[in-house]
Structure formats: structure tokens, C-alpha cells
């Protein structure tokens, strides 16, 4: 039967994974990668967010309804990003 909540070890492994990703972010900040100095930390942040949502917030073990609610949150974030970028990418004076 599918588990409905994570076991303690899952939290420990995820905690360590988050700390490793944090170390990677700091390391990446000190390496000259050009435009990737922005892209890489954002991708790492995305991975961290996914780990927190899936395991710490139990989304991995939840019903589809919870996925709908979580997706709504991501959709709302999308509204913020799209409309804000609608300004940044079309500024005539830049």
C-alpha cells in the first residue's frame, strides 16, 4: 500500500540534500559563469522548492486535490512572473 506520510529517514536525507544544494549555490556564486551565474542558482532554488513541497509538505504522499491546490499556487506565481516580465522585457528606455 502507498505510504501517506514520509518516514523519519526521508526527512534526514532531504535535509542533507537541501544543505548540499545550499553549499552548491554558494560555490556557484564564486565561479565566473557569465549568464549562468543567474540561471544555475535559480535552477538550484527550483530543486530546493520541489524537495520541500514533495517531502516536507507531504505533496508526494497526498491526494490529487492537494496537487490541484499546489498547482494553483504555482500558477499564481506564474501570474506574478509573466506580468512583471511584461514590464521588464518591453521597457523602451532600457
Amino acid at each position, binding site marked *: 500500500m502507498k505510504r501517506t506520510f514520509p518516514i523519519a529517514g526521508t526527512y534526514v536525507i532531504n535535509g542533507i540534500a537541501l544543505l548540499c544544494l545550499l553549499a552548491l549555490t554558494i560555490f556557484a556564486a564564486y565561479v565566473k559563469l557569465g549568464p549562468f551565474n543567474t540561471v544555475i542558482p535559480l535552477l538550484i532554488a527550483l530543486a530546493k522548492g520541489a524537495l520541500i513541497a514533495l517531502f516536507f509538505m507531504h505533496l508526494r504522499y497526498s491526494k490529487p486535490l492537494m496537487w490541484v491546490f499546489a498547482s*494553483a*499556487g504555482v500558477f*499564481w506565481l506564474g*501570474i506574478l512572473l509573466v*506580468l*512583471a516580465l511584461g*514590464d521588464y522585457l*518591453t*521597457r523602451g528606455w532600457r
Partner: protein
Amino acid sequence: MITQAPPQPEPPLTSHQSPLTYLNVRHTIRSWLLTTDHKRIALLYMVSITLFFFIGGAAATLMRLELLTPQGDLVTSETYNKLFTIHGVVMVWFFLIPSIPTVLGNFLLPMMLGARDVAFPKLNLASWYLFMAGGAFAVFSIITGGVDTGWTFYTPYSSTYANGHVIAMAAGIFIAGFGSIATGLNFIVTTHKMRAPGMTWSRLPLFVWSLYTTSIILVLATPVLAMVLTLMALERAFGVGIFNPALGGDPLLFQHLFWFYSHPAVYIMILPGMGVVSELIPCFARKKIFGYHFVAYASVAIGVLGFLVWGHHMFVSSQSIYAGMIFSVLSFMVAIPSAIKVFNWTATLYKGSIWFATPMLYALGFIGLFTIGGLTGLFLASLAVDVHVHDTYFVIAHFHYIMVGGMVMAYLGGLHFWWPKISGRMYPEGLAKFSAFTIFAGFNLTFFPQFILGYLGMPRRYRVYAPEFQVLNVMSSAGASILAVGYLLPLAYLLWSWKYGKVAGPNPWRATGLEWTTASPPPKDNFQTTPIVTEGPYDYDAQAAEEEWEHAHA
């Protein structure tokens, strides 16, 4: 060994004993401060926000006194800056946003759903403590010197140049924001999971629909405010370059993030007010609401569209003109669901048997003032007109028509309507009507001249102005003094009626709705038995009300 005494049967009530209600079930201060009863928590909020209302009101009073003359002769410019910041911060976050949801919402939501309490009673109490802790930070910041950034905390001024306790004030808002999120979450879960048997979504009172939408906005928008204030504090405290161009940041990013919260926050303030009015109009027109589903879905539409329009605050900020055009069009779209509501309320009045009781006076005041506030919002949503009136008193008048003319009128209307349920007593009707008229007159005298001032070019946030603006400013200050009397009166007579008012009985308005089926004040668990709902809300009959009135006056 632990022994437990057998439960003692409760002694029967004697004639001089009053029945047990949520008010007299316990009397200690501890029983209030550690209560998990939604009704008591509502009263804790009521006392707290009233206190904050008078702090914010005191700041406004000093501002209006300063503006009596064109010269700056009462306070310095720096103090004036602090006064409008205190007024804005306290009124927005510590009065308007919590007002209807946490007082009337907390008190009524479980009763309207037929439940014993909200879904998470302890979280509900924690929300109040978070609110009070946030308020304590704000008051600390005010007492120890204040903040002069304006309630909007625009960067790079707030993060770089402003003196004062900006971080303490931001921390207060941050903490109170978590209280808002917890309340929103509590209301969403309560509406989904705690409805009585038969209480389908189509039978929910419209107040519940508006609270539900408000709660969704609270949960989705408030975290963005928390983030943006944290980023501002990080830049201020540690020089992390996020918004300051000198540090490689972008000041407009602050405005985007701030208004992504703060524009939906306007709907956090007004939607519950609309919910209250949707309850008052059918009751005092003795008529079923016109277009129930339209009004309900209009709340949701306002909630959704409210997230798409924040850029209209930034038309002159050097935001891209293309983004401005999109935000302008989207802003016009919010007028549609708002108008649906106004037309439906008006249609409900048509051929109704209208009873001009105090709550109805407030509801009618709301419709008129909200309409003026809403329509002037369309002026501001027009790109070209906004360039002319941006940051002038026109904007001040517009949002006060929405927030004070709309929201505060609705709050007072709701407070008078449900006061018999909350306290078990009636307030003095004549005095209450007088105070409603005083507020309406004082409000219009205060804020209508500000539309003209703004259109003529008087900028907001200045204490010194051109002499030709004095007449309109004196009118506005005179109106504010009338408004102050209007606000003090209900405080006095509601407190009086708490002890000396006529006993109200369970349903003095002969209103529909589950909250009126229980005693006033309600027992601790709201209902003796779980109600079963078999019909929709607003089962009023105007014809029967007319016949009843004629019979009584024959």
C-alpha cells in the same frame, strides 16, 4: 492512583439565572486570553482593531488640523511624513484588513455554516496573538520615533535613506501578515469541511462566499508582502543589492512585488464589505437576493481579476508603456463584476418592502459611496488621465470612498445588524440612525472636496499648499470633525447598550440564516443540535411583509 469524580448533573436554572452563553460561561481574564471559542476571539479582535482605529484616527486628525491653513504651522514636514505613514500603516494592516473578516467573519462563519467552531480553533487564537505581536512592533516603532516612508515603503528611500524604525514597522506587518494567512487558511478549511448537512455551496450565505474569496486572496497574496518586506529589510540592514540601483538592484521590482499584494489587499478590504451588504439588502428589503449565483461568482471574479491589475499603481513609475496598456485594460475589467453586484443589489430593492433600519442606512450608504469610489477608479485606470491625477488628492479621495465610504460603512452596518446576536441587546435606534446620517454627511464633506483638490493639482503627502486650495481643505477638515463625532457615537451607545440595551431575543430582524436560529447571545457551542439545511438563504417575502405592516398599522 488518579480518581475521577463522577460527573455532577447541572443544577436546573432558576428564574433569576440567565442561560449559559459564550459570554457568561466563564468570567476570568484567563478564560478570554486562552479561549478557543470563535465568538470570543471575534470580540478580542473587535477590541483590538477599535484601539488601532483610534490610533490611526488620531494621526488623521493631526493631519487635517495641519491642513487647515496653507502654511505649515502645526507640525514639521518630518512629523507630517510620520503622521501619514502611521495613519496608512495602522488603518490598512491593523484595522481595514482584519476588520470584517476577523470580527464579523470569526463570529459568524461557523454559525452561518451550522458548525460549532472554525476548523482549527487553536490556530484561530494563535492568529490573534500574531496580530497583537505585529501590532506591538508597529506601536513600538511609532513610540520610538516613527517611520516617514509612507505606508508603501517605496525603495530605495525606505531601504537606504529613511530614518526611523523602518525594519521594526516592517516586522510588525510581517508578523501580523502570518496571522492573516492563518485566518485565511482556517476559513477556507472551515467552509470546505464544516458545513452542516444540507448546506450546499448554492445555499451558502453570500457573506460566506465573500469571506471564502477573501481568504483565498489572503493566503495567495500575503506571502508576497512578507517576502518583499524581508528583501527591503535585508537591503536596509546588510546592503544586499535588490532594489537600489546603486547596488545593482531595480526599484520597480519592489513596486511590482508590493502591489502584487497590496492591490489584491484592496479586495481583501472591500469583498467582506460587499458580503455584509449582500446580507443586509435582502433582509431589509424583505426580498430574496436578485441573481444569487451572479453575486456569488462576482466575488470570485473580483478575487481573481484583482491579482491581474497591480500595475495601474505604476503608470508613471517608468514601467513599460506596453505593460501599462495591459494593466489598464485588465483594471477596467474589474469594474464588470463590481457592477454586477451593484446592479443586483439595486434589483433586489426593486419592489421590495424596504425597512430603513440603521443597518439598511449603512448598506444604502455603502452602495452610493462604493459606486463613486469604483467609478473614479476607472479614471485612474485610464493611462492618460492617471498621468494628470497620479499622486494627487484625487487618488486619496478615490480610495477613501472605497475603504472608508465602502468598507467602514459596511463594517458599521454589519456591526449594527449582528450586534443583537453578539451582545443579546438592542442599541438605541434613533441615536444609531442619527450617527449613520452624521457619518454619511461627514464623510462626503471630508472626501468630496479632495476629488476637486486633486483634479486642480494638489499633490498628496504635503503639509504646505497653494493658498487657493484653502477653502476646499477647510471644508475637508470640517467634514473630518463631523465624521469623528459620527464614529464616537456608536462607540458610546454600543458600549451603553451592552449592559442597558433592550433584550434583543434570538431574531429581532426576523432575518433568515442559521445564525438567527440560535439564542442571542449564542451558547458556547452555537447550536443545541446540529442544524439541517433544507432551503437556500434569503427566503424573504416582500408581499407578506407589506401585508403584515398594513395589518399592524390598520
